[in-house]
């Protein structure tokens, strides 16, 4: 199916937003302005965006420790996220969560997760809510190749098949879990495994927004029609280290440079839409400029925001006690 001009512009904008967000965090991390662990998703924008552009606000996703891209693609507020990552009181989670726990249930974002494999069971719950309340909603579990081996992910896949839940399992296969290559940590075939649980599975080029999106459309349709879960394996790459500070000594020199040159998702997208005369380069340049301003402002705002106060330490544990 052909994406509309509006959809294309939105997709490009979201990818650019994520890319710039992450690249700026890379700089801010190096400068020491960001506390804690930061996992950047630059390079993987096409999967987050290609998937989330098919979702309604009320559809839910569960993200990973590498969750900024998922959150932004799902519509979370940039400034609020930036403040959270900087640990500020008016951040998305009041400064209590940080990068690894970005969440906004109002946007259907059920949270980044510090636990590898933590999200997929939760997403089955969101899908169960949609199914029980007959909202026509679907839910997406993002998880990495490393996470794909966790028992929780296997259990969630099985449960979604048994309960015929509208879940889309989106495996972002970036070739590494921390410093370990997927080729070591997983010896089989992800599609076969998913099919082994009883759901349709497809592998796509995760750098190609169109391919991801096409697979996602089919999966969402299945979900909304009550035909149960689907599995999408997006082959992708992360451009930075596992976390900020990682030496990436496990990677061959120049590997990522080559990926960027040959298959960067922004580049592929631009090429495709201009060649097919779907969008003008100028439209995208405009977006680039706009996003640059947004990110700059978000960082300025985040830096100017106050940290949580002593009293904040003790609130928000229970609704009532």
């Amino acid at each position, binding site marked *: 199916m052909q994406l509309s001009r509006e959809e294309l512009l939105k997709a490009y904008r979201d990818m650019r937003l994520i890319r710039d967000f992450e690249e700026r965090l890379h700089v801010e991390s190096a400068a020491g302005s960001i506390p804690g662990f930061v996992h950047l998703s630059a390079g993987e924008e096409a999967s987050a965006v290609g998937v989330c552009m098919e979702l309604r606000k009320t559809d839910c996703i569960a993200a990973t420790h590498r969750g900024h891209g998922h959150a932004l693609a799902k519509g979370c507020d940039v400034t609020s996220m930036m403040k959270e990552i900087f640990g500020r009181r008016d951040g998305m989670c009041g400064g209590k969560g940080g990068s690894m726990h970005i969440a906004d249930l109002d946007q259907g974002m059920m949270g980044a997760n510090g636990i590898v494999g933590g999200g997929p069971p939760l997403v089955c719950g969101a899908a169960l809510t949609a199914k029980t309340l007959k909202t026509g909603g679907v839910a997406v579990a993002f998880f990495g190749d490393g996470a794909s081996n966790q028992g929780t992910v296997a259990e969630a896949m*099985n449960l979604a098949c048994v309960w015929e839940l509208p879940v889309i399992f989106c495996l972002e296969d970036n070739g590494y879990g921390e410093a370990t290559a997927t080729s070591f940590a997983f010896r089989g075939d992800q599609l076969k495994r998913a099919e082994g649980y009883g759901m349709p599975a497809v592998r796509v080029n995760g750098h190609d927004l169109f391919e991801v999106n096409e697979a996602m459309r089919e999966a969402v349709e299945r979900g909304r029609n009550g035909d149960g879960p689907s599995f999408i394996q997006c082959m992708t790459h992360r451009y930075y280290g596992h976390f900020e500070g990682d030496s990436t000594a496990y990677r061959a020199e120049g590997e990522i440079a080559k990926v960027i040159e040959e298959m960067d998702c922004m580049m592929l997208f631009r090429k495709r839409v201009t060649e097919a005369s779907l969008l003008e380069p100028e439209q995208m340049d405009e977006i680039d400029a706009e996003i640059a301003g947004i990110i700059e402002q978000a960082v300025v705002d985040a830096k100017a925001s106050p940290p949580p106060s002593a009293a904040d330490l003790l609130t928000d544990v229970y609704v009532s006690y």
Partner: protein
Amino acid sequence: MSIKSYREAVNEAIVQEMRRDETVIIMGEDVKGGMGGSAGVDEAWGGVLGVTKGLVAEFGHDRVLDTPITESGFIGAAAGAAATGLRPVAELMFADFVGVCFDQIFNQAGKFRYMFGGKAVTPLTIRTMYGAGMRAASQHSQCLYPIFTHMPGLKVVLPSSAYEAKGLLIQAIRDDDPVVFFEHKMLYDTTEEVPDEPYTIPFGEANVTREGDDVTIVAFGRMVRFANKVADKLEAEGIGCTVVDPRTTSPLDGDTIIECVEDTGRLVVVDEASPRCNMATDISALVSANAFRALKAPIKMVTPPHTPVPFAPEIEDLYVPSPEKIEAAVREVVGYS
């Protein structure tokens, strides 16, 4: 009002809450039983010990869900459903199985609210069966509520009788926080008067089941029965026991416990859980920090030994704190000077 068993009280609480609120659903392994089975029945079991019998007949398969044997999967799903609009009651068949799904309970459900800056509401109830006495050996007899009590973000409930079970479970289901509800397997067949209409018992309000001047006994779950028995027996001898059933270990009604100890000056804590970092130590520490001047004798803790739960009946019975051991502790504390 009529005589009901603890099992019936739990069942009735669920039924009445499911009637009241359409978003209440239940799930667990064989809470119905028979799914896909060749007999083609809707309910082959109604729970492994029959606690959830009859639910599917009234509420249908959409609200009464059997699960595969994947506790992380379905307890996590219950947490996710709770965060997105349902009010699930998930059954972890035996508390001992928490080892395969603890993350979804204490790192996910229990932390949503705090780590998301107060913006999540997770009205999840996890029902689970605990305790020794069934000759079920070391992987099916543990108490484990101390490790849940340790976790911020979780509420922990230990109903000690049928009346308590109904009121506390209705409260748990209505509560907007994740609640872990511990049903003692040796209590299911115990009976007492239980109102037919729904009622709640608030969390964090201890129940003083006996009043006496000489010693305070704080006990949990099944141990409340034992403590009451001891109190009744000793009363005849002129030893007055105040028995406190905290009902919930988190939140804990420390005030009532402290007040009682201030009155009696002596304390015995009875906890069926393993002795290290358990509720006995928790209560003891609370009291010695807050009722120091009132204490006339060392606090005595009655707990099992620091061993797994054994299989053979003869030694399992020695493992569990008994009325005899409680009585001896009370006598020791009362006799101290």
